[in-house]
């Protein structure tokens, strides 16, 4: 049984790794780099914080 689990672990690892690579390729070819890297630090804080103590 343990050897079967051993092989199953390799199989799951390969499948999920391939899926992530496929999704990565799909996203990178679908969206522009500007959109994907558009996140900015502290945007919400800049809107909500007024610093009136």
């Amino acid at each position, binding site marked *: 049984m343990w050897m079967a689990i051993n092989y199953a672990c390799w199989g799951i690892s390969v499948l999920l790794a391939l899926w992530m690579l496929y999704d990565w390729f799909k996203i990178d070819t679908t969206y522009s780099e500007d959109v994907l890297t558009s996140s900015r630090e502290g945007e919400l*804080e800049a809107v909500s914080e007024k610093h009136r103590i």
Partner: protein
Amino acid sequence: MTAAVETGLTATIHGDRVSLLRVLGPAHVWALGVGIVLVGEFTGWNFAADKGGALAALIVCWIVGLLYTSVAMIDSEVTSTVAAAGGQYAQAKHIVGPLMAFNVALFLVFAYTMLEVSDAILLGDTIVAKAGVEGLTHNSFIAATIVVLAWLNYRGVLMTLNVNFVITAIAYVSIVILFFSVSPWTQGAVLKLNELVTPGNALPYGWIGVIAAFQFGIWYYLGIEGTTQAAEEVRSPARSLPYGTMAGMITLLIAAAMTWYVCASLMPWEYLGITYYPLWDAGKLTGSPLLENLLFIATLLAALASANGCINDAARAWFSLGRDRYLPSWFSAVHPKYRTPYRSILFLLPIALAFAFIADLNQAITFSILSGVLQYTFMSINIMMFRKKWPLGSIRRGYTHPFHPLPAIVLFCLCMVTFFAIFLGFGSQLIAMTVFYFLISLWFHFYRYKFVRRGDQFSMPWPKPQGY
């Protein structure tokens, strides 16, 4: 973007930018912090007994608990103000400066990646030990742990931390069940603390043994500061982060005390100091197959929860470096559907796998602890500068820690003691790591910093610091 419109995927983009998703609450923060740490109760802390005896393991449990309480209080105050992914990196950037921030981010990535590697090795070794099958190696279990958890992190932070909450809670409850199953109120029935820890063997190497034990006492709480990495994904950072972090610290202090009491009452310090599975062994020594199996499963779950949280945190620190162009901005991509730093997760995945296959547990965890203590040393200096530059009343704080500057001084002193303890046990690694951070700092200062958009990196809408 045109292609995206054609495929209909733009529905997942909110506004003009793709950012991390604010979906987490205090329970997720607790799950992230305690999840990373709790594995330390299942293995690691007990090596303190090898350095200084069972009583030394208890003394460092409380003293290092003080160190981490200081860490949690300081972190809660600063993070409730600098609520950005990257946690201590973002704090360092705003309060100390870019070079410190770059180093802190590397401390974070190293500490969490090496801890993830250690967790995966532990999980693999535990399964192999349980199976007892000739020819079975830990490699497949290590690969499955790292890849499955990376996939979970890739698919979204909410599910990742929901899973962490459940498995961390099960592992924690198993410690509580073990504690009450051995009649802790009655010595002699199952527990034999007074026979195993005597005045003659309590501190076999004297007080220098206690100092040496600091290095492994860190295991009781290593990683609780990881809660701050969720800052950009919690719905209410000012409330959730201090609440989740402090609740996590209280939870861990209770777990550490229960773990020491049960294990020191069941095993002689000579064995306790060398076993890789103190709680699993404690379950076996009770003679109950139910407890033995429960503690075996809990050891696996604790390792899983820790690795899961580490992937989450290391990826966010790496992502933040990319976003500020401290590293190529390619790393700052956010998945438009799952809203996770997917390229950072994928980049760190093979690195973790490579270390897990070639490094041994002791090396990996020493590098993790070293990076962690470097980070805590920075935090003690950071809070002093924060209070000086932006005194109370000058900016809004979600939490204000009491007794300042006492926690910062205590933290700094305890870090120095821990460095000395690490030097006693792993002096060459300490020197190698220091040289590495020095060289990488030179690279950042003389080469990489010219790519940074200097005005963009300071994002908090704070008033000018006092004295500037």
